[in-house]
Each structure stands twice: as structure tokens, then as C-alpha cells.
């Protein structure tokens, strides 16, 4: 399942990701982090497409994005998949 | 003394520039201002011959910061200017001290305050020795009086700068810079280079490194200052330099540096011929000031005559150095006023 992880302590609650997500899958959290912000968090829905728009606008690099890829045994073992141009991976 | 080959007739500014090149100067950044223009002019042709960089910057502000960049990257770098230009460089010099970076700055003094004429003067003593920039910092200050010393002190300046990771100032003036004298243009000492692990050259095979002088956490800034002060005590202990002439039996000792010391030297010789027991004490390092040496001398000599080409700046340090009760008289002429040895002798007589 495609998903994102928002670093609870790093997020400063600017919510730019909330606006950026085309499917509104991110919301304002209810818990305070150590700095006194309410970090954003993914909603319960599971229709994330791993488009990474949220991570692209996040000023604090607080969002990691995970994409579901079919496990093709041979290739998956070694060859590093060439990153499609569309998805800006900056790892 | 090592064979330094034939003497050459050369201007002070050019001798200094050549000394810097032979000391390993590889980046010079400067800006035109009389009376030091021979330094950049000479280096603009000379540095490329040794694979070095000469760049005339857009201002003295830019020059000192280019020097800061070059030394931060591990290269021997220098700038030269004259009084107003040196005033523009004060922030940069304070940064060099705070960053603990080795750099050589040459001030061929001209008159002040303000724009000032281009005659010889020594009006920048306070600025040079008290630090014209902000914060508790010191710069080593070397005061040449001859063309030979212009060459030799350029070599020495780079060695001291690297040794203590500190800016070093050479304080000359129009006479010493512009006049030509015979001088050996071969260093009187081996060129010493030191390892510089602190420089920024890209974090290859090591964690990233940073050069800065702003510390916000806890008392880091205070700690830095104590580190600097320990260094300055060390410099005060080990790097004082001065020269004396006929002080063994002197009843009055003249204290003078730079061009004033040249005049004082002639005055001492003339006065001796007239039977006056006078001598000369010439500080070579204006900081660290030869306070201990003057104090010791003042145990025996109770009359000092401070002679400067300003209205009294080094005299403060002389008065602070001598034992209480010692008489310290002052004679000086500012902003281009150039007394003759006879004038000095006249003043000596009036003591």
C-alpha cells in the first residue's frame, strides 16, 4: 500500500502538505510534539498514490513516501530500478 | 649569517611584496590607495609568475573578505592598503581573529582623520594595537623602519600568522613604503609551513567542517574568547621584538618606532657627539608591546622621551610599562609633520 510517514517531532504544523495533497489524505494532528506543534498526519484513507507532492512542498523534509512495487524476484534482488522522471526521489 | 646574495636598490613597498611572494603568498586581493600602490602594482605582474592569484577587488571591504575566503581554503593570502582602507577592513580583521584564520594585512599609513593627505604619519597606532574592530581580539603588529625590514617582516608575518592562526598587521608609512634603499631580497629565515586541519576544502573522507565566529549556544562564545586570550598571553610571552641603540649608559632613552625611529636614531648619534648620554629603544612588535623590557630598563633609567609622528599614542603604552615615578616626556607632530633630528635634539635639551 502506498503511504507516507510524517516525522512527528520534525513537523512544525505548517500544513502546506495538507493543501498540496490532491486527494486530501493529510490532516492536522491532535497531539502536541515536543516543540509545541500539532504535526500533520495521514488520514485513515488508503488511496495514496505516492505522488510525493506533500513531501515536495514540505519545508522541513519531514515526510517520507513509500510506493508499493510488485516484487519481481530476479530484478528486485539486485538491479536498482531507474527512478521514473515523474517521481522526484531525492534520496 | 646565511649568504643573502647581492643587495638590490628597491622601494620599501616592492621589497615587502617580494618578501611576501618568497614567503609563499599565493593570493593577493587589494585596492588602489596611495601610498601603497606599488604593492598591488608589483604583485599584479609577480604573482602570476609563481602560479599565484592577483585580483584587484572592488573595495577594501571586498579585499579583506576575499583574503578571509582564501586563507579559509588554506592558501597564504594578503592584502595591503592605507589608513582609510584599513578602517574599512576592521570588521574583516575582527572576523579573521574570531575565525582564528592566518592572514597578513599591510597598512602603509597616511594622514588622518578623514581622508587625510598622503604624507608620512603614525596616526594609526591605536587602531593597529587596540584593534579597530569589535570584540576582545589582538593582531600581531610589526613596525618596520627600513626597506630590509619591509622584506623580512613580510616573511616573518606569514610565519607568525600561520603559527598562531591569527591576523598579522605590518604597520609602515609613506616614507618607508616609498623610499628605495639597498636590501637583500632573500629571506633571512627558512620558510616555515604548518599543517592546517581547520580549513574548508570539502568534506572528503571526514565530517563537514565549518568556519564561523558566531556561537549562540550556552557560553560557547565566552569559551572562544578564553581560547583567544590564552593564545594572546602566549604571543605576549614569546613574540615580543625590539631593538636598542646605546642604552647601556643612557640617562635618557628615546622610544620610537617606524620612521620616527629613523629620525630618533640620527638624533641619538648627533647627541652622543655632543656628549649627551641618550639611547634609543625601538619597539618592533607594537603588539605584543615590549612592556616587560621597558619596565626592566626603567629600573635603571628614569627619563624616557617618547617620540612619534602623531599626537601621542604609543606614549600610553610606555607610561604603562615603566615603573612608577619614571619620567616620560612626549614629542610628536601629526599628519605629515616631519621633525628633523635637530628638532628632536632641541627638545631633548629642553627636558
Amino acid at each position, binding site marked *: 500500500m502506498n503511504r507516507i510517514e510524517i516525522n512527528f517531532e520534525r513537523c512544525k504544523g505548517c500544513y502546506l502538505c495538507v493543501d498540496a495533497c490532491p486527494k486530501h489524505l493529510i490532516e492536522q494532528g491532535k497531539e502536541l510534539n515536543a516543540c509545541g506543534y500539532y504535526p500533520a498526519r495521514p488520514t485513515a484513507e488508503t488511496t495514496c498514490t505516492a505522488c510525493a507532492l506533500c513531501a*515536495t512542498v514540505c519545508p522541513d523534509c519531514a515526510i517520507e513516501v513509500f510506493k508499493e512495487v510488485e516484487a519481481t524476484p530476479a530484478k528486485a534482488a539486485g538491479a536498482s530500478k531507474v527512478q521514473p522522471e515523474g517521481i522526484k526521489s531525492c534520496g | 649569517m646565511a649568504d643573502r646574495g647581492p643587495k638590490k636598490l628597491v622601494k620599501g613597498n616592492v621589497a615587502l611584496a617580494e618578501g611576501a611572494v618568497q614567503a609563499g603568498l599565493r593570493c593577493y586581493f587589494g585596492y588602489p590607495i596611495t601610498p601603497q600602490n606599488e604593492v598591488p602594482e608589483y604583485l599584479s605582474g609577480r604573482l602570476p609568475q609563481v602560479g599565484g592569484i592577483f585580483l584587484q577587488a572592488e573595495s577594501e571591504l571586498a579585499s579583506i573578505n*576575499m583574503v578571509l575566503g582564501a586563507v579559509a581554503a588554506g592558501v597564504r593570502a594578503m592584502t595591503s592598503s592605507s589608513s582609510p582602507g584599513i578602517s574599512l577592513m576592521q570588521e574583516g580583521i575582527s572576523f579573521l581573529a574570531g575565525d582564528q584564520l592566518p592572514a597578513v594585512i599591510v597598512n602603509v599609513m597616511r594622514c588622518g582623520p578623514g581622508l587625510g593627505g598622503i604624507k608620512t604619519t603614525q596616526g594609526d597606532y591605536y587602531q593597529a594595537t587596540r584593534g579597530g574592530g569589535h570584540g576582545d581580539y589582538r593582531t600581531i603588529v610589526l613596525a618596520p623602519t627600513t626597506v630590509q625590514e619591509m622584506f623580512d617582516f613580510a616573511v616573518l608575518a606569514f610565519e607568525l600568522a600561520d603559527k598562531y592562526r591569527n591576523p598579522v598587521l605590518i604597520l609602515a608609512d609613506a616614507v618607508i613604503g616609498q623610499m628605495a634603499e639597498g636590501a637583500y631580497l632573500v629571506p633571512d629565515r627558512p620558510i616555515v609551513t604548518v599543517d592546517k586541519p581547520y580549513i574548508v*576544502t570539502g568534506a572528503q573522507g571526514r565530517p563537514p567542517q565549518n568556519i564561523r565566529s558566531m556561537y549562540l549556544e550556552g557560553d560557547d562564545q565566552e569559551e572562544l574568547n578564553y581560547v583567544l586570550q590564552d593564545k594572546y598571553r602566549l604571543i605576549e610571552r614569546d613574540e615580543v621584538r625590539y631593538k636598542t641603540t646605546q642604552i647601556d649608559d643612557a640617562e635618557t632613552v628615546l622610544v620610537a618606532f617606524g620612521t620616527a625611529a629613523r629620525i630618533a636614531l640620527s638624533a641619538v648619534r648627533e647627541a652622543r657627539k655632543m656628549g649627551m648620554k641618550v639611547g634609543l629603544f625601538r619597539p618592533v612588535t607594537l603588539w605584543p608591546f615590549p612592556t616587560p623590557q621597558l619596565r626592566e630598563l626603567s629600573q635603571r633609567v628614569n627619563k624616557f622621551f617618547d617620540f612619534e609622528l602623531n599626537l601621542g599614542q604609543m606614549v600610553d603604552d610606555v607610561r604603562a610599562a615603566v615603573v612608577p615615578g619614571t619620567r616620560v616626556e612626549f614629542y610628536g607632530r601629526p599628519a605629515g609633520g616631519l621633525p628633523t633630528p635637530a628638532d628632536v635634539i632641541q627638545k631633548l635639551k629642553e627636558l
Partner: protein
Amino acid sequence: MQKKVFSRPEGLLDVTTHYCAGCTHGTAHRLVAEALDHFGVRERAVGVAPAGCSVMMYKYFNCDTIEAAHGRALAVGTGIKRARPDLFVFTYQGDGDLASIGLCETMHAANRGESISVIYVNNAVYGMTGGQMAPTTLLCQRTTTTPAGRTVANEGFPLKMAELMANLEGVTYCERAAMYDVKQVRRARKAIFHAFEIQIQHNGFGFVELLSACPTNLKMPPAKAQKWVADEMVKTFPLGVFKDLPPGPSPAPSSAPAALAEEGTAHAV
């Protein structure tokens, strides 16, 4: 099986920054770090920090950095690059640092065609010192030193650096981008990559102006601040490429000029 498709670039240290919530300095930092990774220059890079909000960038960039006095980053950068032409030098500066106190250093480094990449974050206020007017404060924009709004009569016009840079022959590439939405962040990323490329491949001077939001000093929530940049700032600071010379013999400041000074200089010794 899951594959991580977005994460912190190696060029950025794994720490929380001091920047305010919604401040796009953070975004700019990530894009620069991505460029350092992409071109593999992190290990020979030296970043020159300004005085301003990003003075503490040494805590965030995973490369060597040095703090310049306010306004002097491009002079310090020149010194580093001339001393060590093999190093990759970039300056990261705010509008006060680059366009106010440092304007002279900026113009001359640009016109000398120094092989340096300049990341210029323009947020129309002095952030670190609490929201005073910047050289790029918009007309009528209120700041703590223009309480009634900036006026032409008293404060004159906002300074347009990208346009100024484009008119200097020493400049190889110059663009103004922004970071107020995904599209602009991607464009800014391309611009930064291109500026880095210009230095690495052609020893050219690359200049990227990034319009940025300062929610704290605009006194707006992050989203509104971004919108202000998009709606208001862009009117005064139009986005686009203002100059992009094709690769060719750009005025590379060589480390040693071809012709040795002839022997008979006026001061031959």
C-alpha cells in the same frame, strides 16, 4: 514490497531546523542539498553563509561551510574559489545580505564571472532581526521599519536582482523562481540544478533568485504567506529565466593567466 521514493537528501543533515513553520528556507535548503547529491560535489563543496536567518546553515548542510560577514559572502566565495578553483563554491544569501549591504560585492563577483553558484532567497523582509524593511520589500508593504507601508518617496523602489544580474556580461545564467507550490518548487529545483551545472561544466556564474515566504514577519499563516508570494510578490518580481548563455568559452577566471608578465615590468627587481 515497498520502496521509499522520497526522503531526506544526503546533502542535508538529519536535524530539525530553526526556521519558522512554513518558512521556505527549508525547502531551498533541501533543493540545494539535492543538487549537491545529484552532481556528486558534496565532498568538494564549500557553502558560504550570509548573516541572516540562514547564517546557521552550517547546522543543516552536510558539506563544508563558512560564515561571511553580512554582505560579504561573494567576496569570501571569490577568495575561496580563486585559492582553490577545484572546489565547488556556492553562496546562500538573503535579500538584505545580497541586495542591500552586499550589493557591491554581488555585482562585481557577477561581472567578473566568478565560477560560483548563488542561491538568493528573496522574502521581502529582514527575517532574523524581526521583520524590518528589505531592499525587496514591496511598495506599500508594512514592515517594522515601514509601519505605514513602503513608499517611493521615502524608501524608493524594490530592487530586482535577477534583472540586474542579467545585464552583467559576466553572468552566464540567471533565473528567478519561487517555492509557493509544487510546480514552483520543481521549477526552482531545475534552476538550482542548472546553476550548479553551469559552475561544474563551464566555470560560469549562475544566479538563482528564489521568492520565499516568511510567515512570521508577514504575520500570516503559512498557506496565506505562500499565496501572498504567488499573488503579490510575483507582480513585482516576475518569474522566469533572464539569461542562459549556451555552454561555450565562458569567461573562466583562470588560476594562472596564459601570458606571463614580461620581465621588463616597471618594478623589475
